[in-house]
């Protein structure tokens, strides 16, 4: 990301970056790991996202078989909060921009 320093002050640079970061849709992606139990991952998905057993199992199997699953998408701030919570449970979770929208 580059800024035109001749035209913008540091505060507007910060504002521009913040606006860019906060705008748009972000994805919460859970990546596979060989350690955490399937039942543990299902329980976390149910607890954190309120998924049904069926939805939680579907996402868990997607992580297990395809290496990753998009478990939530929406505003950046809430996506960060979800990633943080999943990391507290020791799942490998990352934030990525949803470029399909």
């Amino acid at each position, binding site marked *: 990301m580059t800024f035109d320093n001749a035209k913008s002050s540091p505060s507007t640079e910060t504002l521009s970056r913040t606006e860019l970061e906060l705008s748009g849709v972000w994805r919460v992606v859970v990546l596979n790991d060989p350690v*955490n139990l399937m039942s*543990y991952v299902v329980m976390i998905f*149910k607890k954190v996202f309120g998924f049904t057993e069926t939805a939680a199992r579907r996402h868990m199997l997607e992580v297990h078989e395809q290496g990753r699953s998009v478990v939530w998408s929406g505003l950046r701030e809430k996506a960060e909060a979800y990633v943080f919570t999943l990391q*507290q449970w*020791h799942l490998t979770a*990352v934030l990525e921009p949803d470029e399909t929208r």
Partner: protein
Amino acid sequence: MKRVEVKLSLAVVAPLLDVIKQLAGGLGQKLAAPQELGDIDTEFRDAWVGELLTGQSADVQALLALFDDEFFLEGVVAFDKDNAEPIMRACAAVRLRLREVYLKGLGDDILEGGDVELEELSEPVRKAFMCYLFLATVQELIIQYLDSSIIES
């Protein structure tokens, strides 16, 4: 409050506690698994990791607290809705460290399937693998009996 008491074999579990305590010591300073924080700025990243470490450290203390004097007298540990969550997370943290420190040589297929000839492993790796299985059993017990308490809390 729903409470689950489990009677463990002291002869089997007590020797594993040395390994768990040894790894638990390091979990106050280092995350169990490195996390990819992408484009989050440095200051926010430090706060983020700091909070994860604080939580991880508290969780590990909850796990170690299971093995108190009563455990060494009776062999009994108890889970309830207050300690279930931190113990589940601590088990995950210690299992991740066990893989990193002792079990990487086994390969991920073996770790996921649990299909290994214990007699063929060296003593430290065998003990680490036993810990790995023991902590998974603790997690499974909690999920089996306290799943709804955790989800609703």
